[in-house]
């Protein structure tokens, strides 16, 4: 159920990302929400690596479908980043904010690197990559907190009833 909720939220995030205007306070960049969702998916679904990877690939394909990026490029980048996060899962605690921030930054930086490979590397492009990674680092703990609300849904109510009965 959580996976379905995550998938729907991710598609909504992709649509929102495609509707957001560029922000002057980000130097003309647009907020990217998908890397944060992908990172959170990888951290929360670490026991089900295939689900985490599937979420990353679908997020990447949705991203590419709503942009002029070569189709499949972002899916490859997000997938690679999630594999790296899943490999580090044994030694990292996903509850720690700095782990969440690092995961978000890794996903965003990998996606931006893939885009750079397509459009060409330059000093400006590297600067953009760093800013996007920082934005995702900030967004990821916020998205993680938001997803926590849905993690036990719809069982959370029954749990509450049991604790009251006890």
């Amino acid at each position, binding site marked *: 159920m959580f996976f379905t909720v995550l998938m729907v939220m991710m*598609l*909504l995030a*992709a*649509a*929102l*990302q*495609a*509707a*957001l*205007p*560029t922000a*002057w306070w980000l*130097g*003309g*960049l*647009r907020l*990217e929400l*998908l890397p944060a969702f992908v990172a959170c998916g990888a951290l929360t679904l670490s026991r089900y690596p295939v689900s985490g990877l599937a979420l990353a690939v679908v997020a990447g*394909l*949705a*991203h*590419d*479908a*709503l*942009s*002029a*990026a*070569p*189709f*499949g*490029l*972002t*899916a*490859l980048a997000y*997938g*690679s980043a999630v*594999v790296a996060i899943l490999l580090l899962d044994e030694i990292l605690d996903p509850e720690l904010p700095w782990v969440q921030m690092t995961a978000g930054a890794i996903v965003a930086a990998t996606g*931006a690197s893939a*885009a*750079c490979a*397509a*459009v060409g590397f*330059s000093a*400006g*492009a590297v*600067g*953009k990559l760093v800013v*996007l990674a920082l934005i995702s680092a900030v967004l990821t703990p916020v998205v993680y907190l938001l997803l926590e609300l849905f993690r036990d849904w719809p069982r959370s109510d029954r749990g509450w009833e049991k604790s009251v009965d006890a």
Partner: protein
Amino acid sequence: MLGWIIFLGQPITASAKLRMVFVRVCTPFVRLGDFVPVIHSRRALAQENTRLQAENDRLRQLERALTETVAENQRLQQLLHFTGRASLRTVGARVIGRDASNWWKTVQLDRGSDDGVRTNCPVLNADGLVGKVIAVNRGDSRVLLLLDPNCKISALLQKTRETGVVVGSAVAFSRAPRCLMTFVDRNAKIAAGQAVITSGLGSVFPKGILVGTVTDARLNKQTGMYQDVDVKPAVDFTRLEEVVVILGQG
């Protein structure tokens, strides 16, 4: 991963079909955004109706709607005037989404191949040239904006008739987007404020569409053989709402 790389190397039709599936899945979510303001204004109206005089609120709301309709009408009339004057076969479209990425400058339109839109069709609005269509589905299409470095347009300076190529600026961070007109004769006299229009060469863009105005010019640093001209686009790309897609000559 190897399998994925092989997939990326597949003939374009395989990935294009999969892309079309994803566009069809994602576009309804993009269109959801159209309903958000409606829900918001209804809520606001309900709150105001309980607090303030109902008649005044309804009139204010009506006035706002009328102002918006009048403004939209004026924009559409300007568009019709331009396309009618040039005797072009066109179709009007609304912008329903921007590019989800920060690396490409595109927008999504609500018109597709069912409406006659094809790849490379020029797109413009009342202010000037917007870009060209790069991908088409049945009910929607994607437009590469003038600002993207991949969009190259054969252009000329309206007053002096000097020719050049306008490309999107590759500057990563900029509040005011700029374009660059390159390959302009090194001896050409260029003044700020001069209009830049499409030259009609290259057979994609019809001749005479306003691209922008000159803001600065300098000799190319690398070769010194031609001038680079900074061009401020005529179109405000942050406020793109309605556009016209040119389907061909009338």
